[in-house]
């Protein structure tokens, strides 16, 4: 199969953009990505967005953004898979280009959390869980994560600050990302003193909801001139998997099946094993997710994922660098855009343009976008093309 490559990337700063609307935010990223791609014109637009119909009172976001970006007439659709919307939109763009039916695909992730304030946002987020059996009982994503974390800490005897390393690592990496919401390293005391959200999950065990937009221009390698300005990054592996929404329907709620299945399929597609992966972008909407993803993908055995954050393994100089630009925790969690930010950051890393956060000789990056507690997992393996 011919190579699907990332010809252009763009992203906005992640933060509280009170004064920038959904369409303007998306366009800012699109503009930069298309410029980065030398002006390539897309035939299809795939938008990753999870909550605009609720938060921004705006559905039909595909057509809206295509028109606003001056791409009137092209195919445009929104892809929704809760927090994995971005990864899922990327997969649709990849499939379109790989199939040969679409030459240039534009993938945009965008979210405007600040279009609503207060309890309405929690209510909107709760729609990503099982409405009839979880949300109606008052279950929110944070409550789900807290239950997972509590069970995990009980079964594996994790100490009270056992998860601190995830926040500390994320913030240390965020310091080197000018688009991150939080750009300062934090001290362990900050985690220890953090307010509880739902015992044992504290403020630093969950990523901040934020606004942001990120975009990618995908095409086939053969369609680009042989001398191309930016180092090319190929989407070498792509796979997606789904599971129950409700935690109580899981076989083992402390094992993210979808993380294992989708990462496994993507790696098989590339012919890659775990030690071939140079960095891993997990979906740290909650620190417990990071631990469970590390375990399911295979970087740690069950019950030991949290230790990789304690011993520095996930640091930029560690054995498996993670959240290389800050992750959800420090770069921020911009909803449906998150999965696209992962791809943009991974591409930046593989192009050798990550500055202070550059990993030497990075060739393969695994990015994994989750919806809910891995009710959806979309995994991609990005590869540097020399």
């Amino acid at each position: 199969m011919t190579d699907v490559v990332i010809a252009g990337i763009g992203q906005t700063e992640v933060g509280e953009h009170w004064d920038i609307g959904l369409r303007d935010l998306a366009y800012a990223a699109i503009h930069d990505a298309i410029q980065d791609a030398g002006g390539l014109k897309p035939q299809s637009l795939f938008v990753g967005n999870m909550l605009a119909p609720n938060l921004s009172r705006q559905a039909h976001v595909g057509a809206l953004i295509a028109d606003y970006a001056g791409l009137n007439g092209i195919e445009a659709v929104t892809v929704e898979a809760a927090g994995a919307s971005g990864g899922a939109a990327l997969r649709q763009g990849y499939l379109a280009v790989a199939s040969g039916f679409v030459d240039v695909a534009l993938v945009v992730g965008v979210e405007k959390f600040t279009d609503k304030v207060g309890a309405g946002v929690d209510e909107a987020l709760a729609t990503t869980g099982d409405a009839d059996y979880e949300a109606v009982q008052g279950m929110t994503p944070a409550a789900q994560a807290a239950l997972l974390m509590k069970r995990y800490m009980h079964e594996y005897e994790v100490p009270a600050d056992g998860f601190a390393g995830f926040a500390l690592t994320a913030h240390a990496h965020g310091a080197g990302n000018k688009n991150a919401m939080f750009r300062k390293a934090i001290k362990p005391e900050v985690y220890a003193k953090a307010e509880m959200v739902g015992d044992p999950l504290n403020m630093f065990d969950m990523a901040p909801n934020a606004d942001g937009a990120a975009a990618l221009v995908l095409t086939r390698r053969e369609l680009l001139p042989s001398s191309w300005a930016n180092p090319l990054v190929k989407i070498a592996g792509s796979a997606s998997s789904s599971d129950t929404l409700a935690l109580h329907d899981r076989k083992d709620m402390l094992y993210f099946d979808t993380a294992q299945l989708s990462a496994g399929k993507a790696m098989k597609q590339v012919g890659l094993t775990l030690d071939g992966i140079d960095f891993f972008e997990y979906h740290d909407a909650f620190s417990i997710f990071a631990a469970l993803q590390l375990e399911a993908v295979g970087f740690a055995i069950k019950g030991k994922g949290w230790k990789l954050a304690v011993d520095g393994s996930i640091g930029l100089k560690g054995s498996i660098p993670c959240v290389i630009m800050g992750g959800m925790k420090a770069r921020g969690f911009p909803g449906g855009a998150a999965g696209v930010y992962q791809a943009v950051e991974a591409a930046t890393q593989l192009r050798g343009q990550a500055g202070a956060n550059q990993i030497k000789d990075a060739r393969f990056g695994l990015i994994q976008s989750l919806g809910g507690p891995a009710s959806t997992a979309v995994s991609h393996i990005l590869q540097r093309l020399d």
Partner: protein
Amino acid sequence: MTTPQPSPTLLKPVKPVGIVGYGSYVPRFRLPAKEVARVWTGKTSGPPIKEKAVPGLDEDVITMSIEAARNAMMRAQIDPTELRAVWVGSESHPYAVKPTSTLVAEAIGAVPNTQAADWEFACKAGTEALVAAMGLVGSGMGHYAMAIGMDTAQGKPGDALEYTAGAGGGAYIVGPAEESLATINASYSFVTDTPDFWRREYQKYPEHGMRFTGEPAYFKHVSEAATHLMEASGTTAKDYKWAVFHQPNTKFPQRVAGQLGFSMDQIEPGLLVPIIGNTYAGAAMIGLTATLDIAQPGDRILVVSFGSGAGSDAFDITVTDKAPARQNLATKTREYIARRTEIDYATYVRFRGKLAMK
């Protein structure tokens, strides 16, 4: 100091004006923030202030304004019939129609040859009355004008703002600069349409935009007003002895002070929110009375209010040698604050009329 930039947006009256008398009032009752937390969250840590002032059963913005006005009159030592305006700014005027100002004017003997009106702009209702008083006196329309900022703001039960919605305020008599204990060198107002906090008619409690009340509202307007006033006046933070900022909680004024180059010492005398709460339209006004209570001749003071909706009024003030003789002529702000009776949440609910009796 740099060369002042001539600015048509600076508010300077034709005749120099100043503060001839000032006074404040704080009710005696105190509700500790940890008592609010006890009822609503069960947590003991993290309240935004220590305690707030609560008006008693027979107190309201009218009674409180009258006492503050009397204190201002005692310091000014003027004939009340020479007041050509009595203006009260508040978010909690007892009547929607029937001005607080007429009762205050009558109580202090300023009627009938006087202007009277109620002002409204969330927490800057008092300072805008002060700006207008500058204009009335500075244009020669009147010898003296009184501007009061006073509030008994309601906090919605269980809302974050319930910890801080306090009661209190200050009264100022504006007159000619040569008679003043502090001159008002200039004022500047910065206003935009920013819906951070509001209350519709017939609603008992206000609503707010949570995090939207921070950067896009309070910080933007306070910073712009302060920066513009200082640039147009050729000053920086170092040129002031004291600064008073609107204080919805302890952190906001501390943070904006730091951003503008002021030290915590400079804002300390006027930072009352930790012990009386956010007195809304009275906040910047009473922060200034507490500062004037201890200021020395020559001290320069920057005052910046903030009203949701949104806007800020900034004032550049210099204390004169007339101040020391007048400071002790009426009860000082810290003396009112020290007069303290602690109440519990149940008593507070009764006092504030939160129990539906029908």
